[in-house]
């Protein structure tokens, strides 16, 4: 900063003014006093001189030596250039007797300045018989001292040889001497000028000294302080004063050092905190972008650079819309943000620098300052492109796998059916060739069976593919399982399988489609019967299926359970048991039964699970919700 009014100058100026006034006053006063004193001394001398002249005149007059008196006066005038004039005035007539400048016989007026010494009020009468003096202005304009000495009728005058003055105490005449003060004044003025010059010199010297001292004692340390503060302000927190001074400036410097220490400590702490926070934001793999209220990008982290391919210098200050594959998706997210404080896991698409689409889960929050004002938007996005691609890939491959399963299964089923048809045809043909009626019938039966399998498969496929609708009605599930038992009893007894039921009588009617649930349960029980067929039971163990119905522990769901002690299933089979076209049945399984069952239970908002152990048996458990 440019200092226009330096402190030392200001202080010096104040001192200068004070010193000037004081010294000027002193000079004036001393000049006045010395003039007065010198004037008084001059007056004394002049009065003494006048008295001497008068004595001389007295002596000359007593000796009736008038001509000598004139000579004497002229002599006196010549003797000293100091005398301007010496005149002798006859009193009371006021006629001038002797003078250097005025003609003898001239009459003086009473209002003359010299007369006023005795005739104060202009009266003719006065008691003043002493020598008087007055300052007058001389004819050349310079000052002059006028001394008037009365010549009084003394007793000697009555006995004089020349003439006798009878009345005593009378003023016989006046001796008026005038001394020019021109030289005196010149001398005094010269003296005053010298004094003034000396004073000015002294003032200048004193001011210079003060300026120097102020500069050294005040301005310099202050400038050092300013330099220190400037250094601090410029961000160099390492600057310190070497604490050597023991005056007030030293105190200020100590305080400055303490302050600098504290600022440094705070600054380091702040820097650490900021670096820590920046580190978190910077190093997260997520895309972190902040945008101001006008939609311009403010910050862009490393994660964003990596995911989107832009350097931060390319996008900071640009509009955020440039990053969206469809800016309308941002508008929608912002609209949602208006309704609520946060938008979380908003699925949207960014466009990377190479125009590749990046799928992200965007979480938007308001950015607020300390006083709570909204200053922008913070967006944290997770790049889920890989997951998304994988998901699509999975869906695609699952679709393909399902199609593959369906094709493989259908091909397998058709092979079996073709085998039957071809076999039947062969048998019938041989029968015809050999004319064996019985064999022809056998062959035709085989063909019929093959055909019925084909139509069964096609029916099942239609059944699975069909749109099922649930027509729910309050259903007594214990009734329903009794019907299942009746429907399967013949097959069960043929195969030596016993079917029993366990019914929880307290269970209320459950809202479901009784026909669909019957179909599902029928499928499960048929499977159990088939599974029993496959097991080589040990002695003492008989194939058994238990069908249970009871209320779940939460009191809100009904449970239908079919348990068998048949061959059970391997984990691979358990995992795929509800997968369409997955079948372990040798020849005629469609792989659609349990898939359809699972779908129908889902339509009821229910659940179907399976527990099984190889060689031990299987439990299918259906849970159906009801309003308690």
């Amino acid at each position, binding site marked *: 900063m440019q200092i226009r009014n330096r402190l030392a100058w200001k202080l010096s100026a104040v001192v200068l003014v004070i010193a000037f006034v004081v010294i000027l006053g002193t000079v004036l006063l001393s000049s006045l006093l010395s003039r007065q004193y010198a004037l008084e001394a001059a007056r004394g001398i002049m009065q003494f001189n006048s008295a001497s002249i008068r004595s001389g005149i007295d002596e000359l007059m007593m000796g009736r030596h008038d001509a000598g008196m004139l000579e004497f006066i002229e002599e006196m005038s010549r003797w000293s250039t100091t005398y301007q004039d010496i005149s002798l005035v006859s009193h009371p007539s006021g006629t001038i007797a002797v003078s250097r400048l005025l003609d003898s016989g001239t009459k003086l007026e009473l209002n003359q300045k010299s007369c006023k010494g005795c005739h104060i009020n202009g009266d003719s009468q006065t008691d003043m018989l002493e020598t008087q003096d007055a300052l007058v202005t001389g004819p050349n304009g310079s000052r002059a001292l006028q001394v008037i000495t009365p010549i009084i009728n003394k007793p000697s005058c009555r006995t004089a040889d020349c003439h006798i003055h009878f009345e005593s105490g009378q003023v016989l005449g006046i001796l008026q001497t005038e001394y020019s003060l021109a030289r005196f004044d010149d001398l005094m003025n010269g003296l005053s000028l010298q004094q003034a010059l000396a004073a000015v010199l002294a003032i200048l010297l004193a001011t210079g000294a003060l300026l120097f001292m102020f500069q050294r004692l005040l301005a310099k340390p202050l400038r050092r302080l300013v330099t220190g503060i400037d250094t601090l302000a410029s961000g160099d927190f390492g600057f310190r004063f070497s604490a050597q001074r023991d005056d007030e400036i030293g105190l200020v410097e100590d305080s400055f050092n303490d302050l600098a220490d504290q600022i440094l400590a705070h600054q380091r702490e702040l820097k650490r905190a900021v670096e820590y926070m920046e580190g978190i934001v910077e190093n997260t793999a997520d895309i972190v972008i902040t945008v101001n209220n006008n939609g311009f990008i403010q910050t862009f982290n490393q994660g964003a650079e990596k995911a989107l391919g832009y350097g931060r210098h390319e996008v900071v200050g640009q509009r955020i819309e440039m990053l969206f594959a469809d800016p309308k998706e941002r508008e929608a997210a912002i609209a949602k943000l208006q309704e609520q404080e946060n938008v979380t896991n908003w699925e949207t698409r960014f466009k990377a620098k190479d125009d590749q689409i990046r799928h992200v889960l965007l979480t938007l929050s308001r950015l607020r300052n300390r006083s709570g004002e909204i200053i922008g938007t913070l967006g944290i996005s997770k790049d889920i492109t890989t997951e998304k691609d994988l998901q699509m890939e999975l869906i695609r491959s699952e679709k393909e796998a399902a199609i*593959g399963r369906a094709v493989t299964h259908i091909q397998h089923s058709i092979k079996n059916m073709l*085998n039957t048809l071809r*076999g039947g045809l*062969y048998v019938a043909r041989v029968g015809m060739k050999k004319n064996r009626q019985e064999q022809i019938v056998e062959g035709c039966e085989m063909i019929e069976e093959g055909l019925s399998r084909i139509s069964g498969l096609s029916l099942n496929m239609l059944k699975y593919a069909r749109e099922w609708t649930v027509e729910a009605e309050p259903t007594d599930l214990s009734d329903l399982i009794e019907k299942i038992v009746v429907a399967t009893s013949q097959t069960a007894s043929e195969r030596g399988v016993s079917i029993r039921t366990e019914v929880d009588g307290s269970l209320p009617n459950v809202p479901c489609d009784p026909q669909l649930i019957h179909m599902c349960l029928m499928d499960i029980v048929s499977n159990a019967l088939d599974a029993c*067929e496959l097991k*080589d039971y040990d002695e003492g163990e008989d194939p058994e299926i238990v069908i249970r119905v009871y209320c779940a522990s939460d009191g809100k769901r009904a449970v239908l359970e079919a348990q068998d002690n048949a061959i059970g299933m391997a984990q691979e089979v358990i995992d795929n048991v509800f*997968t369409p076209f997955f079948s372990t049945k040798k*020849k005629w399984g469609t792989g659609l039964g349990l898939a359809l069952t699972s779908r129908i239970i889902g339509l009821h908002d229910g659940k179907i699970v399976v527990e099984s152990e190889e060689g031990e048996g299987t439990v299918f458990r259906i849970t159906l919700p009801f309003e308690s």
Partner: protein
Amino acid sequence: MSKKVMIIDDDENTVKFLSVVLNENGYESVSACDGREGMEKLKEDRVDLIILDVMMPKKTGFVLFKQLKKSEQLRDIPVLMLTGVAASLADMDSESDDTMARPYDSLRESLRKAIQDMRESGDIKPEMFVDKPIDPDSFIEKIRQLIGE
């Protein structure tokens, strides 16, 4: 005296069909609907060839095959295995896209392993598999190769 063939298969139609095919071509046939019945009948009856279905309830064809090979009397009787999957396995192996067969991975693996085991033990030869649906002519051709007319 005509040669006798034992058919062990749970599918009646297949049994009926193969019996007719065999009889038409001068072979005598007996049948059993599962492994247990087959073993019992084999103890009573001497046969020249056993046709065994791989996938059967109670005892699979492979289990029965191993039992046959353990038995002193039955070990030397040739066995022809019927399978619905032999050709499928070959098909699957040639498939470049694995996802097609994924649900059957472990089943396929266990079958292949079983077949591999048999091949390595020298008990079984590749031509002893016959795939369904069975073509009567090639079926008889295989039997003739094994046991003659």
